[in-house]
């Protein structure tokens, strides 16, 4: 009897294994998780699997707060993983630790690489000018304006320059009525805002590869100082003083409640605001330019990469290629609130033809006015810079430190 069972098991195993082996499972770790996004990704995966019999995509979705840590951990311990979502702030360390596959050979043979927006190309080649990822979502900033609140305060024109923006903010600010101008950002990644305001006063940056670096920065340049002074004035006279502790949620709240009718934000704010506010009540316009006639914008991104030790790279690439096509990517970004990576999506997708997205398209296609500059993310000075900048900026706004002292300190931090 025992022997019979053993033989039976062997037969089942021998017949069964090849049957199972025909299905190849690829593991996909997403990091920007949210319940809606995970559900949407699962739907897309189902679609992919039904058109690709024999491939199974296993989606791993850790909770958002732990996702980056989990990604690092899985990569560093070479856990089975074939596709990984990589963010602007993790790509450098993953490449440094040789955990990402150089996608150059796939990238060259991929037709739709040619229709990627210039910002997407730059994002793909963030590290060493080599495509380690294919971007999926792009985040750039534009100016959100509550027209109804401005009209109530007697303002009918939209600002084209930073000076106009600041003047309007100061003009409508009236603490007695709880009316302010600008939805200020005081914490977590607040440097992106001061960088935008102050750098718009310096034309020379256009020649540099990044906004600032160990080789070159403009923190103590008189034009930059002037820009920072304007920015600080905006806080003192045109923003709620409590905004020193404002993060993303408070900014959105200030905008939706009308307390601060000017907001500079990424496109992911649009679906959120639309849930709380009549979409007719606000407009999105390109960010105002500085006295130079231009503005420097940073960009954020997430993309998909293949771990260097993956045994299913070819399958993984096929899935990435599928996800990055104009149609699928636009569908994904539409439901996630990001900008699509394919330039064709702005022409073919109904949602991205909508008026709230035209500002972003204009910014991406007017290189004479809007110049995209990455942050110096490959510099060892970069991590932690956000914390240092935040504390220093808060000390300036609170009057505990002089602007010039802090700017000199920043210059030292970057150059010494």
């Amino acid at each position, binding site marked *: 009897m025992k022997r019979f069972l053993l033989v039976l098991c062997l037969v089942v195993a021998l017949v069964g294994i090849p049957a199972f082996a025909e299905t190849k499972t690829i593991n996909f770790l997403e990091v920007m998780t949210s319940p809606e996004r995970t559900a949407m990704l699962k739907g897309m995966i189902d679609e992919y699997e039904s058109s690709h019999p024999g491939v199974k995509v296993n989606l791993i979705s850790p909770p958002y707060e732990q996702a980056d840590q989990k990604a690092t951990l899985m990569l560093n311990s070479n856990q089975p993983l074939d596709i990984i979502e990589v963010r602007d702030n993790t790509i450098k360390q993953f490449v*440094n630790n040789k955990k990402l596959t150089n996608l150059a050979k796939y990238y060259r043979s991929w037709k739709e690489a040619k229709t990627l927006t210039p910002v997407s190309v730059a994002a793909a080649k963030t590290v060493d000018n080599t495509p380690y990822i294919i971007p999926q979502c792009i985040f750039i900033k534009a100016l959100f304006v509550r027209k109804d609140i401005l009209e109530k305060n007697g303002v009918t024109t939209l600002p084209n320059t930073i000076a106009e923006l600041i003047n309007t903010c100061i003009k409508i600010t009236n603490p007695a009525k709880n009316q302010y101008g600008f939805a200020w950002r*005081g914490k977590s990644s607040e440097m992106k805002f001061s960088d935008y305001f102050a750098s718009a006063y310096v034309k020379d940056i256009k020649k540099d590869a990044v906004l600032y670096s160990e080789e070159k920065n403009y923190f103590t340049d008189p034009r930059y100082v002037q820009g920072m002074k304007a920015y600080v004035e905006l806080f003192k006279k045109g923003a709620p*003083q409590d905004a*020193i502790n404002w993060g993303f949620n408070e900014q959105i709240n200030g905008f939706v409640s009308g307390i601060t009718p000017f907001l500079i934000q990424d496109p992911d704010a649009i679906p959120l605001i639309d849930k709380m506010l009549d979409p007719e009540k606000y407009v999105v316009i390109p960010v105002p330019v500085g006295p130079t006639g231009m503005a420097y914008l940073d960009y954020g991104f997430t993309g998909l990469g293949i771990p260097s030790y993956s045994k299913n790279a070819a399958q993984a690439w096929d899935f990435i290629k599928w996800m990055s096509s104009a149609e699928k990517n636009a569908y994904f970004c539409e439901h996630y609130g990001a900008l699509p990576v394919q330039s064709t999506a702005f022409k073919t997708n109904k949602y991205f033809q909508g008026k709230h997205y035209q500002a972003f398209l204009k910014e991406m296609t007017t290189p004479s006015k809007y110049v995209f500059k990455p942050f110096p993310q490959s510099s*060892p000075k970069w*991590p*932690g810079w956000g*914390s240092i900048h935040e504390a*220093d900026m808060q000390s300036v706004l609170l009057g505990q430190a002089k602007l010039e002292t802090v700017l000199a300190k920043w210059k030292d931090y970057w150059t010494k």
Partner: protein
Amino acid sequence: MRRNPMGFLIAIMLPAFLFLGLVIFFPVIKGILIAFQNYNLNNDLSLVRFNGLDNFKAILTDPNFNFWRIIINTLIWIYVSLFFQFVLGFILALLLREPFRGRGVYSGLVFYPWALSGFAIGLIWAWIFNGQFGMANDILMRLHLIQQPIGFLSDPSFAMISVIIVNIWYGVPFFAIMLLAALQSIPKELFEAAQIDGANSVKRLFYITIPYIKATIVSTVLLRTIWIMNFPEIIYAMTGGGPNNATNILATQMINKILKFYDYGQGSAMGVIIMVLLFACAIIYLRASGAKEEGAV
């Protein structure tokens, strides 16, 4: 056949010992080792080397985050929170000792903050204390107690007070629960005898109640000291250590070093500093509780 009793003992203890070793001692030792390495996720991890006391030197001389200010913040955070948590918790326990109608429901409500997660509490109170949309300002303005909204979390002179208030709100039930249990163990006869001898309520409190539950007081106070020191959730959710480091404590700075700087070396060094300080606390605790057993009551 005689069995070796020692071998048998080792054999039955080994699984538990291995388990503890794996989940407790291994991470601790690994953490201590990392504190002496240049372990930074931005660098190539194959270049990780021991770097002596460099991480500690870097923390002590950091121009951006004054270490002594962080220490002072930590002490204020611990002791101001602890003092009010204890006093209010003690008062609450004394009140709840006497039976009254609905005591069960009432004590349930009072104890509920203790069951919440620190991070959730921080997020809720961050909105209550919001300077622009917050409930606290709204109530104070409606009562005409203030004219202008207060920047509870954006004004450095209020920020620490605000996070401490939340910590007190959170920690009072712990003392109430522990002290109430101790209070209920005091024999009624002691109070009756004291009353016959003419001792008033203040005297009864200081000569019977407090000496009788001294052991509980000492142990809860010292335990809480350790817990509060290791409790950055509220601060992290409410201010992230700001504005301008006004609420930055050792534990929040440790998290910052790891999550924002990706510097596991300095983060672990911060953890080692916390551990040494807590170790000192624990020694004081053991001494104090040991002394108590020989003396009082």
